[in-house]
């Protein structure tokens, strides 16, 4: 089973890598500047694209960039959504390839947990301040 999976993974990487190796002077991939016909699918793709980083730009999502690589990634996202893949599965696939950096939605991991812990601490602290200030005997 593991061998089949790893074979599939290799295949996926190979297939996925093809459009991304396109040179800059080639015309952009079909779905870089073309929307999906189904509005619901396009909306899902758009939502996902807005949360993926264009790796060659300065702080832009792939939905907001003219860079050729962003166009290629938009093509990837749109064609995978059209094939019925789940947006979060596409995100995981991209993270596997490019690392956590590609996703603007940080995951809870050993390095990123303080991002999620601190808001909870702040919430508790805020409630505590209110309680101490107002909760006691009048």
């Amino acid at each position, binding site marked *: 089973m593991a061998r089949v999976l790893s074979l599939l993974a290799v295949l996926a990487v190979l297939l996925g890598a093809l459009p991304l190796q396109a040179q800059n002077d080639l015309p952009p991939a079909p779905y870089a500047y*073309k929307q999906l016909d189904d509005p619901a699918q396009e909306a899902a793709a758009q939502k996902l694209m807005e949360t993926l980083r264009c790796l060659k730009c*300065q702080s832009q999502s792939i939905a907001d960039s*003219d860079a050729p690589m962003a166009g290629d990634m938009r093509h990837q996202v749109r064609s995978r959504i059209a094939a019925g893949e789940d947006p979060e599965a596409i995100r995981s696939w991209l993270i596997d390839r490019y690392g956590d950096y590609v996703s603007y939605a*940080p995951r809870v991991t050993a390095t990123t947990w303080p*991002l999620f812990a601190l808001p909870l601490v*702040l*919430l508790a602290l805020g409630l505590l301040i209110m309680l101490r200030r107002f909760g006691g005997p009048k």
Partner: protein
Amino acid sequence: MIAEIGLAALWLAFALALLQLAAGVMAVNNPDTPLAALVRPVASVQAVLCALAFGALLLLFARTDLSVSLVAANSHSAKPLIFKLAGAWGNHEGSMLLWVTVMAIAGGLIAIIERRLPERTMIATLSAQAFVGLGFYAFLLFSSNPFERLPQPVPEGMGLNPLLQDIGLAFHPPTLYFGYVGLSVAFSFAVGALITRQVTPDFARVMRPWILGAWIFLTLGITAGSYWAYYELGWGGWWFWDPVENASLMPWLAATALLHSVSVLASRDALRTWTIMLGVVAFSMSMIGTFLVRSGILTSVHAFAVDPERGSFILALLAIYIGGALVLFALRANTVAEGQRFSIVSREGALVVNNVALSAILGIVLLGTLYPLFTEAFGVKVSVGPPYFNPVSAIFVVPMLVVLCVGPLLRWRHDSMKRIRPSLITVGLAVLAALAAALIIGGTDLLPFIGILLSAGVAVGSLLPLRGRSLRRLPLAVWGMVVAHFGIAVALFGMAADSAFTQEELVAAQIGQSTTVGPWSVTLDDVEPIAGPNWTALEGRLLVSYKGGALYELDPQSRNFWTPFQQTSESALLTRWNGQLYAVIGDDAGQGRWQLRLWWKPFVTWIWYGGVLIALGGFLSLIGRVAVDLRRRSAERRIAQRHEEAVS
């Protein structure tokens, strides 16, 4: 010659700041020394000299003096004059000089006009102001000299980043700097009051106009920056939680909290230490913002200085000022008495909710901005963007806005919910109406949905303080509060509507081809090459009509600048009261077709109308407060005069 005069003026200003600090430190515990009389005049002369230095730099840029290294590196003789002048601060050295100039002028102003506080507090405040100024002078003179000459004048300048050649640039940095520097004055007042332990309502009244002024400029700066990014970058986004955007948002959050807490201190003599703390935090955020933006840690259109030496210099300044102020705060805070008590259902109680929430949001934005830099230092790259900031900050924004609906209706010190029940019901009905409307339209995500409901509640709640009061006699400061809070509702509605209802259309269109986006029909009429002073462009002519009505023309361009080479999209916008049509022309898509990107963004302009209303509210408040102060002062003068006459 001009460059040398500018440099000399800058050195003299540096020396005077040193004198101001030394005299201030010696005089603060001994106000009878002659040195005490020196502090105020020195502060004013320092301001004049610094303004002279900045004037010299403007003149150099206006003349495109190519023997000056900064001009050669950032200007070009073919630029229009307005961009030559704006170019003076469109670079690292010039922008730091602008910063220190505004700061020196602010220091000079308080030295000349401010007479309400005890003289000791004023001396301590002006010393703190000089101490902060010294760091920036040193930074300019030792590592970022804007007046450096080239060994040989160059024949032509390098030009300015095309993205920055925009009228927005002429106003964006000065606006933000006025804000940052206003907070530096608040910081100096806070440090001054900590040193002399005199945190009084009078002190709050003196500090308040500076906070209000700073806050107005920050609000306008953020609003303008957001609109600039929206139309200039050509992708229709108006906020991306980009570190540079966050750097401007953080001082605004702190200033907003400070503005509210200083009002409590001025009216009720409560929240003393908290207000001082926020004064320190607000300016710290300005410094952290400057550090992030200018140090080159972030690569962006703002990072002029990709020079590690300068980055370390700013970091050192940051550590000295913030660290020093926090140590002073730790030493002195417990010697400042807490002030008046109040119950949770009261105006102060609502303002405490505002302050706690704003501080928590500030903490989240700070963490989300710095954390990726922190992990990168350990070799792990992560991105923190809208999917993190939006929901996490909403945890605090939502309760804060709920409290905002009714907070201004509450009385000081102690009140009951029963008294304001009719108002509660009115707000509730507004929210219910919005809920019904949102459900009928449908198809929105959770956050925009909540945003629409809250905007209705805040809009109605913000107007309720006007009920039953004579509109003509209402103090300007109350009008200011109402307008600013209403502006929040307007901006929030714009944000929610834009994310919920935007429609996008991408087409590769032939000449003559029509398409639709939302209620608009769009025809590509023609594409023509045109030339500007330092660029060439392809300009599309689009004929558009709203629901089959009158035809309008939109001319988006795809521009190529040649000094330095860069391609940019100049979007074309058509504004209606209920939204904007946003059009961009892209590359030749082959076979005589052109790539068009079109968006219909319902109510998107309300975001910036709201921002302007918020700033306008601040402005009304500022005028109201200053007018009341002036009237009070002249009344006090008259009383004193009569007293003297009676005695003699």
